[in-house]
Structures are given as C-alpha cells and as structure tokens.
C-alpha cells in the first residue's frame, strides 16, 4: 500500500511494504469484524418499551469461551506478524551484506554532511567528495553508511528507502542500503534536534552508473585525476575494482 505514496527506491523497501500489507490485511479483518459486531449489538439491544435486559454473568465456561476463542485466533495472527517482522528486521538492521561503496553521514544542528568516497572508493582520502545536504548514490550498488551526530540526537530518514536510523552523539552507527531506482527525493531529520529541526532538508540523488562516474569526475580535483589509474574512460571506470 505504501508504494501508492512513495516509490520503492531501496532493495529492502519491498520487504517493509509487504510486512505493512500483511499487517493491514490481518488487522483490518479483525477491526471490521469487531466494529460490525459492536454496531450490530448496539443497534439490536437498544432499549425497547417493556423489554428487560438479560442477566448474563460472563463467568460460565461457555461464555468465557466466547471471549477466549477469538483470542486464540488473534494470537495466531500475532505470531504470523511476529515471524515476518523478525525476517524483515533481520534483513534491514541485523544482516550486513558485503558492500561496494561507503558513505559517511554526519548530522549536526542543522545540516547534513555527506562524505562520498570518491573515485578510489575509500573514505578519508584526498578525493573524498563532501557535500552539504546532498547525497549522491549509484543505482544497484550495495552501500554501507556510517552515521554520526556532532551535537544532539538526529535521525537519518529516507522515506523512499523506508530507512530510518537515529544518530547518537559519541557513536558511529553502521547500516546498509542498496538504491534500485533513479531519481531525486527528500532526506528528513526525524528526531527533534532544536530550533532548526524543521528546516534541515536534504536530497538524495540516485544516478545510473555512467552519470554517477561523470559526477565523480566532475567533482574530483584535477591533480587527483591524474593520479588515479582509472580516471578517463567510462568503460575503464566500470571495470575498476570497488572495495570498501
């Protein structure tokens, strides 16, 4: 249902959407049933002249069963949701797939700094590309992100990825994603971080491989380009080893 509002731009967005749908179907079934029963009861047992209410304690075995049996069924639904939840959670937050690219996300009052690894694919080298409020990613590439906060709690949220992770001062938090769709969307801060919390928008841009390499070439200083073994042609770039 969520894809109606937002495209699925990461590899795990589909899993989260399917879990959302599963919960929706199970919950809606019980919700509609309960509501219908409730309104039926309220309508059927409205006060009518000369009619007395019944005396029901709800303490006999049969009456208790009337409440208990639906709850065994609800418990079954809970278990189904639980197992699927564990699967999705493992995929998004516990599993750390082998990555091809790294990006560092630094949050502070009130801006995002995105450190891209640049041409050599390694962070903390001279050819890193640091941008404020702009995250540029290559489509179909497994990323590892490193999340930091410099002052207070922030939260790194990309709704089209269905991804969210709080940034905690004093910690480096690692996670992963794999963009699967080209386009440009919002990055939001999802944790109250002070006056400017409502005004720290960033954009994520997902580019096809050739556009991405062109972008890297454009942002790499000239003297570094010569040092790089695979700087010039696109085909060479594509064959270049990506490692973390």
């Amino acid at each position: 249902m969520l894809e109606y509002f937002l495209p699925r731009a990461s590899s795990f967005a589909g899993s989260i959407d399917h879990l959302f749908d599963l919960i929706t179907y199970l919950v809606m079934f019980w919700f509609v049933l309960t509501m219908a029963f409730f309104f039926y009861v309220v309508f059927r047992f409205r006060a009518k002249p000369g009619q007395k209410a019944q005396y029901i304690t709800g303490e006999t075995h049969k009456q208790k069963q009337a409440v208990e049996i639906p709850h065994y069924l609800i418990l079954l639904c809970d278990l189904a949701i639980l197992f699927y939840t564990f699967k999705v959670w493992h995929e998004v937050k516990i599993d750390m797939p082998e990555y091809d690219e790294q990006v560092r996300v630094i949050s502070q009052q009130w801006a995002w700094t995105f450190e891209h690894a640049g041409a050599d694919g390694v962070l903390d080298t001279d050819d890193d590309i640091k941008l404020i409020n702009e995250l540029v990613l290559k489509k179909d590439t497994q990323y590892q992100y490193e999340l930091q906060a410099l002052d207070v709690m922030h939260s790194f949220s990309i709704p089209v990825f269905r991804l969210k992770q709080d940034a905690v001062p004093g910690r480096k938090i690692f996670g992963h994603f794999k963009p699967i769709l080209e386009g440009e969307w919002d990055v939001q801060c999802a944790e109250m971080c002070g006056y400017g919390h409502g005004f720290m928008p960033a954009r994520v841009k997902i580019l096809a491989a050739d556009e991405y390499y062109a972008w890297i070439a454009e942002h790499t200083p000239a003297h570094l380009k010569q040092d790089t073994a695979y700087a010039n042609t696109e085909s060479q770039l594509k064959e270049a080893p990506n490692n973390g």
Partner: protein
Amino acid sequence: MADTATATAGVDHHDDHGHHESFWSKYCFSTDHKIIGFQYLFTGMAMGLIGGFFSYVFRMHLAFPGSSIPFFGVVSPAAYNSLVTNHGTIMIFWVAMPVLIAALGNFLIPLMIGCDDMVFPKINRLSYQVFLLSAIVLIASFFVPQGGFGGAWTAYPPLSAESQYNGTPFGAPMWLIAVTLEIVAFLLGGINFITTVMNARAKGMKLYDIPMVVWMIVIASILFMASVGPLVAGAVMLLFDQTLGTGFFDPAAGGDPVMWQHLFWFFGHPEVYVVLLPAMGVVIEIICTFSRKKLFGYKMILYSSIGLGILSFFVWAHHQFISGVDPRATYLFTTTTLLISIPVAIMLFAMIGTLWGGSIRFTTPMLFALSFIAEFLIGGVTGIWLGSSGTDIYLHDTYFVLAHFHYTFVPIAIIGTFSAIYYWFPKMFGRHMNEFWGKIHFWGTVIPFNGIFLPLFVLGAAGQHRRIAGYTAYPDLYTENFQDLRVFATGSLIVLILFQIPFFVNFVVSLVRGRKAEANPWKANTLEWVAPSPPPHGNFGDNLPEVYRGPYEFSVEGREKDYWPQNEPETAK
C-alpha cells in the same frame, strides 16, 4: 484483606458536619476529598484549554505556513517547537492525569467504597498543592527569557541537557522541575488511593465487590508508583546536567544519551496504561448502568488489567527500535508489544459482551462511553503496525505514530473524561446537565476528532515526520494533495474546539440552573448513589452504608426493579 474493614478512617478531623467554613478554608484549604477532586478537575480543565489553544496555533501554522495566526501571530520555529512540546506535556501530565486519576479518584473512591474521606486527608491536600505549584512553574516557564522548552515532551538529551543546543536556559530546567513536581503530587495521591481502598471499604465489601473504576484507579496508581522511580532519578540527573554541568547523558563526559530514553520510556509506556485504565473503568460503570446489564466477566477484566499492567513493564524499548539500542533487543520487545494486544482486546470484547442482551439507553454519558470503545479500537489496532519493528523502521516518528496515539489518548483523556463528567455531574453538583446540548456536544466532538486524525494516518503513511515546522522546505511533502489534508485536519480541529463552547456553557448554566438531581438519578447500584446529591461533608452522614452484593446486579431475574443497589439488604424486594 479483611472484608469487614471499618470505614471510619479520617473521621477525627471533621465530625462536625454542620459547621460553617469560610470560602477560603472550604474551597482552597479543604481536606474534603470531593473538594480536592473538584480542584483537580477545574485545574485540569483550565490546563486543557491552554493545551487545546497550543494545538490550534500549531495546526493553523501547518495549514497556512508563515501566515499570522489569529490570537497568536506568526509562529517562529522556536515557538513551534515549544508549542508542540508543551501541548504534549500539558495534555498528558496536566490534563489526563489530574482529571482521570486525581479528580475521579478523589471524588469517587470514598463515595464508591462507602467511607467518609480518604485515609490521609492532609496528604491529599498536599498532593493538590504540589500539583498546583507544578502547573504554575510550567506556565511561568513560557514567559522567561528565551521562552519555554522546545525539545519535545520526551526531552531527549543532549538537546534537553545543554542550553547551547536547546536555546532555552531557563525554560528547560523549569519544564523539568514542573514535571518532577507533578510526579511528586501523584505519588502522594497514589499512596492515598491504594491505602484507602485497601483499608476503608464499607462493611461487607469484599475485593470482588469493588466497582471496576475503583479497581482501575488502584491498579493505575500501583503501576505509576512502580514505574516512576527511574524517571525521577533520570530527571534529577538531567537537571544536574542542565544546571551543574554534570555529564550523565553527555558522551563527551562518559555519559550516555540513550540511557535517558530507557529511564524515560520505562515510565513512559506504563504511563499510557496509567491513564487508560481509569478511563476503561469509567466506561465500564457507564455501559453497565445504561444497558442495565451485569458486567460481563468481572474477574476476567480484573485479571486482564493486572496482566496488562505487568506486561506494560516489558515493552518500553518499542519506542527505541531505531534509536541505537542493540538491534537484537527488538526481538524481545516486538514480542511483548504484540502480546499486549491480547489483554486489551479481552477487555474491549468483555465490554461489548456486556452490551449483548442489554437494554441500551443512549444518554449523553452512554454515547461518549460507546464512542470510547469504537475510537479506542482504532487506536489499539494501529499500534500493531508500530509494535512490529519491521514496519516501525519506516513509520517511526511519522504522523502515523501521532495519529495512533491520539486515537488512544483522545478517547482516554477527552471522551472518557466527558462521559465521566456527564455521568457523575448530578452527583457532584446535585443538578443535571442539559441532555440536548450534551448530544450536540457529543457529535460535535466525535466527528471532527476523526476528521483531524484520519488524514494524519495518510500523511504518516506517506512518510511525513512529526515535529517539523517547515514542510515548505521539503519538495516531496509540500504538495497540493498533502496540503489539502493538512488544511482538512486543521479545519476539523477548529470545528471541534467550537463545539466545546456548548459544553462549557452547559456546564456553567447547569451548575446554577440545571434540573435538580435526586440521589440516584440513573438507577445505578454503586454506593456513591446512596449518598445525597451533592454529598455533604462526610458523605453518608451517620449511617455508613453496608454492602451485600457486587456492584453490577442489574436485571436480576425474579426482581421487580431492574437494579439492586449494593447496600440493599437481601430481604428487600
């Protein structure tokens, strides 16, 4: 617990029922549980007006960003944060808690268990005075230099701990002191409620004869007392961080900001049930009376609520799935969170079971009580999406969360409170409220309430986050369709606020000129209806009632009358 416990506690201080008191000693320094209950009620209602006004201002800002809001002006980002923070704080700590627990607990407990006052009347008075002080400190914090605290009602450090980050060097500590004082007030009240119910019940009232609303307030008080300790400790540490420069929550000084979240939510989640249970108790009393039915499964409901209370201590980290706790911990907390759906559903099913076979009268309190069941069900089921850690990755801190907890809190604090006020008004003030205007108020409250929060579910599912003042800065969020939804929600809020005017007029006019109420206008069974309306100082006069049966013996077969008060001896027909 001895079932023959005498109900003479607290008798030493006001055996002279006829004496004249000045207005000052009667209404301001009274130890009478009813007056203290009214003090809490009126303070809670006044704070509700402030909290409601705040919501009007920030919703208007969201619908018409940047424009000047009538009665307020242009909303700056600092003001926006402060408004949402204090709206949440006020509605939970200064509206839901004082009205549902303190006002109803104080007014109802001695009357419903058939004694003349709380066992510790002076602690009771102290409780209200500390509460009033806390409200004054909170309101004063809006007017200090740099304004009120704006770091969200959860006050996560380091934002809340250091004024260089939050920008409110006076507002933040005052906010924290106010919350701490409020908690102290409720600890004093809670001790009183539990002790009174355990020791001062009317002769013959066994544990299973206690009306459900009293049980619920007692269980809520126990939950509160058991959960609040870590929060008080955390609040003191945070206050030291703010004012003395300690570093309990500062990573640079060896502290841990996530620790505060654990301390806060260890209290914060049981707190949901602290306010939920009394509201459920109110609804149970009302649906039994107006469907003329015995409560379906008294013991089942009681044990479910105790189980719910115990389980509520093991779910707190579902607020922290993505906050940097060990990701494996979520397996445990997702499981406990989904399990909590079982006791809540049992209680709701038992309420519907109570209606089955009844003879339902749609009075104003009954309409509110029925709408509580329907609306709270929406709040309950939407919690499943959030309790599941997988979908919470996406939905956390979005408007979906906001809509979810308003669908629990509004039925609790607004709908539950109104049903209680309409139901017990004749007992409180000896007069009836106007039914016609009551029903207008009912429809004018419940329909716009859905109009506010249903669109917010949609916005949340579309990935819009809470507490963001400037949607205009986000191209994906500031679209025409979404803005229409925001305007619709704001419009509904204004309709809802306007429909509270008939309530306040009805309330005030009925106080003075309402139809006189007899002792038992609703033909209910519980002991408060034995006392005159309104009950005098000392409640029952010299003849404290004696109890012969449970509180819900409606429509017993072979009896002429369809109700059977708890204090009526067996022989009477």
